[in-house]
């Protein structure tokens, strides 16, 4: 039996400081053992547990796409003990990785469909993985129209600036960026995600909509997506909960009878409406 608690080592190859306040970094990790890479077959939307030995583990969605071979990327906001320790890590150092975990986005269901992705703040990282995945040369023809709506508090908080620049030039991707408040250099949209989504009003025809972001953003965006015509079955969320084991045993990330770590983190609104949790 495979022991699900044992991490394997990965080396930090690159660290990108994503935000002006330096509180969010993207770590690029490379596999040290070939067999670890072979066993890490993942799809966008899945996550892994990262170990900073002596400090512990925390879960992070893969920000990279499985189409990028040889490495994994994780975007990490400095918030608690483990994330702070990881932020102090440098290129060349070793961290532990356990995964892939969770269900991920239903990539096969999404093939042949139009996809609308709505990301807010830090929650955008797994949508970045999906975007990279669908834009892959071999994958792109298998998906319909791709629309990405991505917002941050201010321009300095937008992640993946190189990607955004590249994506902005493409004709096979509709990219809409927005910020809550602008700075002197920003000439793009200003406004909250729900309002921008309403203005753009992407078509629900033959489409799925994926919403990732802070709870308050999700709360105010879902009525808009419903109004535009997206059914709960075709509205997908990626949820966050405190996790430890990541394999459905430690008992803390459940919503009703479902564990976010193994049954999720991706759920449709239709699935969630049948589960028990406080609306607040």
């Amino acid at each position: 039996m495979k022991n699900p608690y044992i991490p394997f080592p990965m080396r930090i190859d690159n660290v990108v400081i994503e935000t002006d306040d330096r509180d969010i970094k993207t770590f690029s990790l490379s596999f040290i053992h070939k067999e670890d890479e072979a066993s890490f077959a993942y799809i966008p939307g899945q996550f892994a547990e990262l170990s900073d030995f002596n400090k512990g583990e925390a879960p992070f969605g893969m920000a990279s796409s499985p189409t990028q071979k040889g490495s994994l990327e994780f975007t990490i906001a400095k918030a608690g003990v483990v994330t702070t320790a990881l932020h102090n890590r440098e290129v060349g150092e070793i961290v532990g990785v356990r995964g892939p975990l969770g269900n991920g986005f239903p990539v096969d269901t999404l093939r042949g469909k139009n996809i609308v992705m709505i990301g807010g703040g830090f929650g955008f990282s797994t949508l970045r993985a999906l975007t990279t995945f669908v834009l892959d040369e071999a994958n792109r023809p298998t998906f319909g129209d791709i629309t990405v709506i991505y917002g941050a508090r201010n321009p300095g908080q937008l992640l993946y600036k190189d990607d955004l620049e590249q994506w902005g030039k493409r004709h096979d991707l509709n990219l809409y960026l927005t910020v809550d408040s602008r700075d002197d250099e920003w000439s793009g949209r200003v406004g909250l995600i729900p309002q921008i989504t309403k203005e753009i009003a992407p078509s629900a025809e033959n489409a799925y909509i994926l919403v990732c972001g802070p709870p308050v953003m999700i709360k105010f965006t879902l009525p808009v997506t419903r109004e535009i015509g997206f059914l709960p079955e075709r509205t997908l969320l990626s949820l966050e909960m405190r996790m430890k084991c990541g394999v459905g045993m430690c008992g803390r990330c459940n919503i009703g009878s479902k564990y976010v770590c193994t049954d999720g983190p991706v759920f449709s609104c239709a699935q969630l409406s049948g589960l028990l949790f406080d609306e607040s």
Partner: protein
Amino acid sequence: MKTKTIKKKDIASFLDTLLTRYEVFAPVERDERVVFEAIGAGSEATLDYQNTTMPPKGILFPQTEQLFSYRSTKDTADIAVPSFKEKPQLIFGIRPCDARSFLLFDHAFDGDPYYINRRGNTLLVSIGCTHPQAPCFCTSVGGGPFSEEGSDLLLIETGDQYLIQIVTDRGAQLLEESGFKDAGKDALTLAQKMIKTAEASMGAGIEIDGLKEKLDSSFENPIWQELTEKCLGCGVCTYLCPTCHCFDMVDEAEGSTGERIRIWDSCQFPLFTLQASGVNPRPTVKERFRQRIMHKFSYMIESYNQIGCVGCGRCITECPVNLDIRQVVHTISKLEALS
């Protein structure tokens, strides 16, 4: 079903025989309490007890346990997984409620090599409850004072001897070469009588029919606030519960070496679900207490088709503010639907 008998006075020597092949855990008296411990001689065990304060769950799911050790520097990380104990072990004198609790653990720890190895290596010899206590309610949650579910052998007290009910092949193997006599008709009749008397002495317990539906429809009911007002959130109910299996994982480090440890945790603690962002989906005692009840009487039924409570009554006996899970569940089951 095959049955044997053993004289009470022969129990100690039977345990001595078992000790040559097994590590044996049995109830022993310690500071006016009875606890499960690994014994060195059969005479240390006592079968004259009601139930232990702590369930024997720690034998298969230790309160603290090393998952692996590591040696980590900036550019290396070596991991060593502890080897599993090969000597088979046996829990002797476990109560039927506690034996049944491992059937739930079998679901909860499906895929966990630490638990599964121990479980496969452990035999359960249970002893039926001739004198069920006031907090006991096993019969109302699918068990019974003489339930054999989960056990390999079940002992039934009949005067100066025990009737041994052989439940599994592994249990039968324990008795090979024991020379114990087959139970006679009198012993069987007496055992039936003991079982009937014990079952009849038990209180009403919990009304299970329709309870899950009632709980699911009462999730938002303000009654939860009222029901949980006196709860201190101390978590003793979860630590003493034979079916509670939640755990935390922490690194215990000394320089560049350390161990990743798993330790029992409790859904009754605020830190259990507190996220680094500051968000806590179960911010008050109300949500945490409700989680415990829902997990046992709704979610586990949904996930495993089994009630997550074996009716041992420990959470009732040891609760510092006398919160009684039977009353809580009763109150919910009698609620009118929220308009």
